[in-house]
């Protein structure tokens, strides 16, 4: 008896195991899908480009050839932006669902992206910020403020953060921030002009020069997310049990919060406020992996970029010869996911 008590508690409990073959097949599928989406993003557009041309453009680029410049100056940048932003949003969604134990958590739904937007707008209008490295600090501050508010709301009340409460709070937060954004924009037509293109959720708005400086933030966020995965497994058992297993709850929540703010802030600064990527991706991942957050995080890191890049490709196909922003396509793909989740008999807490 005493022996059992003295034994060191396992750092992370191993959640109910899923068939490993399912995970392996799922992982191969995820890799293939990611590769396909990248290839499609490089090949599809108003200008038909053959795989052979693509290969030569990547291996042996000639600036004189139009096809090569289209690939290198237009399609590669938007694909990279899509990959980075999708990675950030997918991971942020998984972290948020884990830390709030809530199946409806998503950076967009919970108002974190709206908070980042409000601060970015204030930066554009009042501080004359134009570079995305300038945007990003405002985005971090806004994401942090919004995440704090949502978290406070979630921790209030006896029944804790129910999915309805959290989602409504996030929507209300978004409505409030949107209203404040509109007030700022009404007075400043130049800021409005810049904002409206950014807010549509486009991957082409600001090119590679603007996106790459944000990559380090996303990298740090990704590392933190991987570190947090074990902690999320402990948190999933409930506060008391997690504490009993030796998990420091405050540390776990702070690591997650920092990662979420870094990921949401850089994704929003890069591509505008995009909803539903963070909602749908972890659910697909969980469907393959089961409840182990170590696997959910890894799969989300692959599915997030796949979803956003695919949405961008779809936006190019649907509206030829023009195109629809990836953010809007994702909203229309993601809302049905939310509705399907809600229509399931009962929303079980995570």
């Amino acid at each position, binding site marked *: 008896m005493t022996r059992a008590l003295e034994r060191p508690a396992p750092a992370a409990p191993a959640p109910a195991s899923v068939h490993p073959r399912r995970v392996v097949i799922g992982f191969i599928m995820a890799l293939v899908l990611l590769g396909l989406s990248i290839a499609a993003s490089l090949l599809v557009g108003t200008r038909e480009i053959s795989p052979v041309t693509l290969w030569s453009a990547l291996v042996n680029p000639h600036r004189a050839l139009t096809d090569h410049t289209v690939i290198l100056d237009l399609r590669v940048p938007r694909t990279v932006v899509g990959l980075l932003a999708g990675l950030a949003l997918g991971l942020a969604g998984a972290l948020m669902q884990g830390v709030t134990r809530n199946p409806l958590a998503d950076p967009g739904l919970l108002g974190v992206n709206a908070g980042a937007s409000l601060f970015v707008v204030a930066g554009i209008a009042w501080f004359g910020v134009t570079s995305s490295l300038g945007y990003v600090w405002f985005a971090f501050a806004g994401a942090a403020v919004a995440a704090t508010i949502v978290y*406070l709301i979630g921790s209030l009340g006896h029944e804790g953060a129910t999915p309805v409460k959290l989602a409504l709070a996030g929507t209300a937060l978004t409505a409030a921030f949107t209203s404040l954004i509109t007030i700022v924009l009404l007075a400043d037509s130049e800021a409005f002009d810049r904002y409206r293109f950014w807010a549509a959720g486009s991957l082409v708005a600001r090119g590679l020069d603007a996106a790459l400086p944000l990559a380090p933030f996303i990298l740090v966020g990704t590392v933190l997310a991987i570190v947090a995965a074990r902690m999320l497994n402990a948190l999933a058992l409930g506060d008391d049990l997690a504490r009993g297993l030796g998990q420091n709850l405050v540390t776990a929540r702070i690591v997650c919060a920092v990662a979420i703010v870094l990921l949401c802030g850089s994704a929003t600064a890069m591509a505008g406020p995009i909803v539903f990527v963070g909602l749908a991706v972890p659910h697909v991942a969980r469907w393959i992996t089961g409840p182990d957050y170590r696997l959910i995080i890894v799969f989300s890191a692959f599915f997030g970029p796949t979803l956003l890049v695919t949405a961008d490709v779809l936006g190019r196909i649907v509206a030829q010869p023009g195109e629809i922003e990836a953010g809007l396509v994702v909203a229309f793909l993601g809302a049905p996911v939310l509705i399907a989740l809600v229509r399931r008999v009962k929303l079980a807490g995570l």
Partner: protein
Amino acid sequence: MTTRSEMKTDVASLSHARARQSRREGRLVLALLGALVLVAALSLAVGAYSLSVPDLLRTLTGQGTQSENFIVLSLRLPRLTLAVLVGVAFAISGALFQTVLRNPLASPDIIGVTGGASAAAVFGMLILGFGSVATSLAACAGASIVACAIYLLAWRGGVVGYRFVLIGVGVAFMVQGLLGYLLSRADLNDAQGALLWLVGSVSGAGWRDIALVAVVLLALLPVIRVLSGRLRVLQLGDDLATSLGVGAERTRLALLVVAVALAASATAAVGPLAFVAFVAAPIARRLLGTGGLALIPAALIGALITTVADFTAQHLLPGQLELPAGIITGAIGAPYLLWLLATSNTTGKGA
């Protein structure tokens, strides 16, 4: 030890409390009416050309000079009337939504109904080049379509409040995306016009808008009166309500239809005036200290909010620019909403 006499005193104190409550509601209604009359008088009298109280009374009884008649009766009175009407309509709509869906945050402006109206109206304005009448119709149609879609998607052998709310949240985000798309595609000037409409303003109120909201309100008030009685029964729970002869599902549907009609007509007339539907009923409940429906106080508070907001936007802010009333309701409503979220969002029902 609960004795029979104690139970009797319980019943007695309950009816006593109920009487006190209704007296309290009466006093509140009187106070709100008084405040509303005061704000109305101010709105009519104060401006670039200000009138004294006797002059105002003379003008209102039809004996003013030509310029007084023009300023008060043709410019300020329509604006005031419209502000009052949309305030009432938004407030009742919000109160009904929040009560039927049993969540203090579930007002039409949060769950996408007003957003549907906005998206349709902006689509009409920017893509189809609609004028004001067609835009109003588009707004009504948009709100109805979105509300129907939410209801149908939430239907699973009955509509449960939380499912309706969450699907509304999803739809709200979809509509928001659509709005962003429309705004980014339009010419900057047109987009700014649309943005102004999206804030909501009662300036340039015409009698046509007033007639629209007034007719809808007058037609629906008797219905609301009947239905709100049933709503009180409904709050006892679906089973009990059914055994008392009140069809729960049908009553809920009827109430939502009424609430959508009110929100749609008000949005069509002035645009989606931010947060009026959302805050009116919670303020009324807070002032009354009850969790009851309190439709009349809520309606008066709605009217008070819109009239005060419009007056503030017109006269109390510095600068030459006349601002739309929605700026004020948004600037005040947004922090209030955050505060409400932080302090009292503990009653949300759901999975």
